[in-house]
């Protein structure tokens, strides 16, 4: 209980720091934000009214509090990059689905493929030479996800014609078709991470196999399979959980780039276009959103730890 409270306190502090940083970062942008928003030929009165409306003439802490209040209600103000004024929250809501499914599918691919593969690779310690496994994983780890996306488009889209590049289907229209298309960007995001996870899980398993408690289990007369399932696996998976949680940040980063390759209307593309158009309200909101998700997931992982590792409760 004490552990949970402590972690909860850390979570709240981290979220607060994030919000402060995200807010203040955009306050140091050179130039007048009212002028930026309304353009060069705005009149003095127009500028004044805009500042009044946006609360720009209040002090920094007051503006932060107002912004945070809005953020907690899901209100981040208005986007400026489109002709039609749009609420930032609506914009984000529309784009979120794509990024969400891309991240979830990539994550599932990583877990489903790399865990059995890692166990297999550790079991074949004496079969396949170490250096070969290392080489293969290292090659896949070296491919940037967006380049992999281009290769996949080239091979599966253009040469094999398994899908038509650019034929993205809205999930509202046909969810099955949507997922079918999304599998290709998900593979592009997942492959380098799968290689990393296999390598990590394998070395974690091999390290555990060397430990004394495994020798004890052998001295009890257990079979290898039973030792692996009952003793080694749980111990070896503990660090892998942290690893996967840390990977989440990478998956989101990969998603931002891969969305660009496959022309997906996700958060990543919205972010890039908002940056190009100096639409700071949107940038702020997306950053706060993604970072909060990462921090909250890390919090959940900490709680999972407490549940599986008896040693954690003690500290």
């Amino acid at each position: 209980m004490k552990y949970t409270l402590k972690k909860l306190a850390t979570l709240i502090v981290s979220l607060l720091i994030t919000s402060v940083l995200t807010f203040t970062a955009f306050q140091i942008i050179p130039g007048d934000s009212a002028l930026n928003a309304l353009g060069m030929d705005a009149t003095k009165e127009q500028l004044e009214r805009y500042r009044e409306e946006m609360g720009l003439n209040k002090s920094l802490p007051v503006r932060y509090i107002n912004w945070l209040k809005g953020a907690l209600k899901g209100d981040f103000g208005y986007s400026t990059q489109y002709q039609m004024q749009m609420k930032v929250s609506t914009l984000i809501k529309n784009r979120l689905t794509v990024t969400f499914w891309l991240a979830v599918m990539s994550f599932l691919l990583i877990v489903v493929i790399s865990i059995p593969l890692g166990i297999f690779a550790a079991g074949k310690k004496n079969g396949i030479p170490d250096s070969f496994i290392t080489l293969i994983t290292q090659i896949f780890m070296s491919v940037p996800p967006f380049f992999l996306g281009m290769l996949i488009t080239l091979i599966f889209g253009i040469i094999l014609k398994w899908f038509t590049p650019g034929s993205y289907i809205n999930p509202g229209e046909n969810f099955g078709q949507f997922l079918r298309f999304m599998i290709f960007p998900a593979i592009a995001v997942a492959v380098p991470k799968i290689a990393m996870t296999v390598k990590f899980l394998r070395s974690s398993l091999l390290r555990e196999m060397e430990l004394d408690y495994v020798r004890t289990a052998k001295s009890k007369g257990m079979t290898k399979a039973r030792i692996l399932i009952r003793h080694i696996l749980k111990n070896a998976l503990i660090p892998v959980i942290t690893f996967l949680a840390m990977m989440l940040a990478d998956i989101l980063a990969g998603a931002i780039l891969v969305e660009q390759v496959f022309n997906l209307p996700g958060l990543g593309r919205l972010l890039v276009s908002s940056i190009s158009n100096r639409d700071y309200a949107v940038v702020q909101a997306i950053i706060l959103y993604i970072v909060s998700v990462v921090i909250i997931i890390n919090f959940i992982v900490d709680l999972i730890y407490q549940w599986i590792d008896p040693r954690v409760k003690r500290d």
Partner: protein
Amino acid sequence: MTNYETLLSVENLSVGVSDKRKINTVIDNISFEVKKGEIIGIVGESGSGKTMTALSVIGLLPPSVKILSGKVNFHGKNLLTIEDKEFRRLRGSEISMVFQDSMTSFNPLLTIGAQVEEMLRLHSKYEKEEYKALTIEALAEVGLSKPQEIYQKYPHQLSGGMRQRAMIAMAMITRPKLVIADEPTTALDVTTQSKILGLLKKMNEKHGTSIILISHDLRVIQSICDRAIVMKDGKIVEAGPTQELFSDPENEYTKKLLAAIPVPFSKNSIMSKDIQNEIFIRNLERNENTLKKDIPDPAEQKNRQDDILMIKNLNVFYSENGKRLLGKRSRKQVIHNMTFSVKQGETLGIVGESGSGKSTLAKAIVGLNKEIEGIININDGATEGLVSFLSKPQMVFQDPYGSLNPTKKIGWILEEPLKLQTKLKKKERLAKVNEIIREVGLSTEHLKRYPSQLSGGQRQRVAIAAALIVNPKLVILDEPVSSLDVTIQAQILRLLKDLQKKYNLTYVFISHDLNVIFQICDRVCVVYQGEIVEMKEAKELFFCPDHEYTKELLKSAMLISKNCCHI
């Protein structure tokens, strides 16, 4: 003790580690027998092959180690040729093992109960409730109070001694015929050590289990073994009944091992009645002295000036280095109100178990621990102008691997203190380095090496040289020989004595090992939970201990030798 039936016989066993087509023999053609119901000890220094011998009996050799030749007959079956499946069935039910480090030898994620019970489940068929009942019974049998609670506990929640008991319960729950105990007490404190050895003996007598006890410590072997085997470099150098073997060793190496066991415990050092009388008389005199203490004695005043170190009402604290932003920092008191002094030229021993605060005290004396209250007065003659440069007290640490910077060459390490503390020129510094390296029994050749290229004993010699190069008067030695093999221990102790004589050094010698303490110390200070419980002349302390704790320490150290030398 005779005519037991043979349980295990090892015949001409050779084992090697293959290393790129070359094979290094680690066990070289050894043969021995274990009879039903006997405890046999295997003693040897690290690298002697004793653990490999044990692992080859139970079939747990690491994959890089291969059996070269020989037989291991257990109940008429050659364990080296039987099928895996059959051997697995024997493991745990007929032969089981107790390992050295009980913390790492249990799975950290499973309860003690689950792990002990697993042994039973693997080798017998009972109802679910019976398994639990039998497990709890086994935990109770090894002397664990509240076995129901222990059953639910995780390994990290128990003390080392409790875990080792649980491990013995686990090894014995299937009533195997042979238990191999590999250094079962090495990681434990002396007092716990003797209890665990007692437990092994008890289980042996109760169930008639044969035990192979492996240890680097002769006294452990002497304490409970019927017969013993001495191993060196993979060979058996001598074997026989424990009593005969250690009272009248034939082999040079055995003699050397025995000689390394210090004064009061080895056979040839039993004190004559005369000495005991002498101590008794001295004791009386001292009592009279203390009576006279009320009147300030000019002689005593002078004595005070001879004190090189005076500690008065010393309290030392330790703060947790953890989170300080959230939650208070916790401060624990490690040393409670200590008062003592050290005379010029003497060796004061400080003995206590791990966690007693010995090392904290050492660090406080040299000024590495700043959280202190009380007085530490060092009068090391630095002000007398006789010494050419500063000579603050120096320290030699337990682990020479940790106390020498691994990225620097020995020459650099030895020159560093001269650079920092003296104004000597480069040439003079090098001359001094060359002189000191020979002084500690190494050659100038060693100056070009890195610490990792030296042996443990050589590294400790370098550490001593580094401490002495600035001409200190007072040297604090914190467990300086604990990480070394016995024969190397003896060499280092001799070196320390020689240097003390030559340079008129004063030592504060910290150790958990009473034997080492008696070998080198003039006076001894017994520390228990941060307090001095007793302080006396070394011999006096040994023969006339006052405090209960001192007696217990001595008893545990001696239980171990009661079989051979009846003091």
